[in-house]
């Protein structure tokens, strides 16, 4: 560990031997850990049944390819085995429980042993060190604490790294700014939309974050965002922002993280085995193609998961990373396999549409995309709520409709039918907005 080497030069690693381990070494380590995990998982009520049904023993796994003999695990499996049906060790040996933010039915919970937490903290520290955060930094975490993993996950990681860690938690912008100024905060963990908001408030207060604060590094994640949004945050704040990826099922933050190259997120293959599959055929995609990320934990004891379908769409970037790390790089996430729309041969994600709609202050935040077959044509209808009636003039509404349509067309390469609707008129399901309705008849 070269923890105290703070010369700022590249090629500094938290765990050089692991981070730069060659492919052969990584494969060997993965197979070893996979076998161990299978042995352990035999103790979980869920996997003992799965293994029995599929004739899986440690002996049936002779190479990493043999992983494919094990069926996928889904979020529904976690829900159906709520709360402790996935545990591979006695509950008395677990020391922490986290849960997802799911709003329908049972949440998905993840159990951790003391070793799991130690391992997770190390992984987060590794990520933070990779983007240049050191024990001399003041790290403020604006994530919600509690069951959500972004709070404690970063807290333990930052403490492990040795940062002065500020568990500011979410909200109360004025107080966040006061801490940033009074404590000399240098790094933030923040969701992208809130970073923009924070910058706005600072400028309103007459604070120029580039001049009046010591901020230099942001870890941004927990919500999908575009490269443009990252650059905007960087410019407004005068900092470097790094994309972080995590999910509670895989501990939380730190699963994959950008290095200073800002070109793809290194996913830590000493802890997980990465597969990218076609979400329809469930077969592996060709190298470099976009598909659903499937992960297997190989360094977790309380609750191992095999071939967990994350529903996140990404691809593995080709080539070696100039930073020297050998762990695979994932592209910026391209959406979710469960909301991808394929229309007229074009693959679309609701976030592309949302990105454009949200630029219009005349619009509210609720919208509904409907795909339906009209005659022989599949058509897209986008209904979006007005934030309020800002005019009593038709021509203004018509011009607005036209302008939104034009921008959507540029982005989607097809022309949707845009319809303005009254505030509060779009359906919600259990309070959560419904975004996509596909009414096509698939023969």
């Amino acid at each position, binding site marked *: 560990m070269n923890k105290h080497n703070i010369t700022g030069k590249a090629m500094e690693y938290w765990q050089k031997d692991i981070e730069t381990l060659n492919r052969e070494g990584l494969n060997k380590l993965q197979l070893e850990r996979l076998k161990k995990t299978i042995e352990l998982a035999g103790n979980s009520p869920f996997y003992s049944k799965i293994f029995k049904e599929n004739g899986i023993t440690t002996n049936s796994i002779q190479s990493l390819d043999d992983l494919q003999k094990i069926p996928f695990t889904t979020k529904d499996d976690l829900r159906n085995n709520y709360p402790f049906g996935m545990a591979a060790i006695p509950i008395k040996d677990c020391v922490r429980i986290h849960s997802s933010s799911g709003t329908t039915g049972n949440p998905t919970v993840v159990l951790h042993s003391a070793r799991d937490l130690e391992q997770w903290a190390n992984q987060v520290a590794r990520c933070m060190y990779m983007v240049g955060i050191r024990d001399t930094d003041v790290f403020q975490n604006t994530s919600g604490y509690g069951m959500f993993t972004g709070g404690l996950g970063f807290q333990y990681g930052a403490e492990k790294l040795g940062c002065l860690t500020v568990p500011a938690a979410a909200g109360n912008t004025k107080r966040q700014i006061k801490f940033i100024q009074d404590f000399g905060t240098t790094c933030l963990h923040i969701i992208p939309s809130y970073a923009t908001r924070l910058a706005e408030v600072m400028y309103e207060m007459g604070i120029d974050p580039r001049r009046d604060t010591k901020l230099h590094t942001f870890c941004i994640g927990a919500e999908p965002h575009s490269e443009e949004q990252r650059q905007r945050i960087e410019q407004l704040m005068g900092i470097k922002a790094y994309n972080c990826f995590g999910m509670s099922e895989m501990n939380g933050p730190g699963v994959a993280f950008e290095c200073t190259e800002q070109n793809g997120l290194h996913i830590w293959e000493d802890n997980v085995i990465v597969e990218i599959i076609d979400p329809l055929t469930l077969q592996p995609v060709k190298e470099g193609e976009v598909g659903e990320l499937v992960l297997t934990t190989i360094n977790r004891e309380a609750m191992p998961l095999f071939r967990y379908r994350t529903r996140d769409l990404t691809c593995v970037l080709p080539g070696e990373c100039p930073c020297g790390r050998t762990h695979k790089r994932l592209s910026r996430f391209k959406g979710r396999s469960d909301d991808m729309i394929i229309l007229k041969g074009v693959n679309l994600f609701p976030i592309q549409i949302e990105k454009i709609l949200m630029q219009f202050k005349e619009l509210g935040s609720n919208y509904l995309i409907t795909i339906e077959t009209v005659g022989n044509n599949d058509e897209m209808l986008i209904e979006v709520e007005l934030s309020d009636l*800002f005019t009593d003039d038709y021509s203004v509404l018509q011009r607005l409709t036209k302008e939104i349509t034009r921008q959507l067309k540029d982005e989607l390469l097809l022309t949707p039918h845009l319809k303005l609707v009254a505030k509060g008129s779009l359906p919600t399901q259990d309070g959560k907005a419904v975004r996509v309705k596909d009414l096509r008849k698939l023969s």
Partner: protein
Amino acid sequence: MTVNQISIFLENKYGKLSEILAMLAEEKIRIIAATVADTSEYGILRIIVSEPQKAYKILKSNNVSANLTDVLAIVTNSCAGSFAQTLSSFTKAGLSIEYMYCFSINGKSILILRTNNREAAREVIRRNSLEYICESDLVKL
């Protein structure tokens, strides 16, 4: 010289207009004049009511997309040519009419109109000594 008109965004859906009128009826708001213009997908309901501010609050609290606009309210009579004469004073001043509707009440004809230049329109009314009504007159109508 001007009164507050309420414009309401209406979706072309069965029962929408009744729903909004019922909200106002329940709070004893009197509708003095109303007009609906529509496109294939939505309409704008424009109304002049006895208590515009109160009506606006009621609509807001019911989460209705609505907007308060100043419109001119000019009194004419029902003689032939009076309507034409009134409008021509605006035309002569170089003003365009964005929209207009009228109604009769207690023997008076009242012209509601919106022009492309509010200040110039006020000036036309002053110069030509046109009769008008104000917000405070609405309750009495």
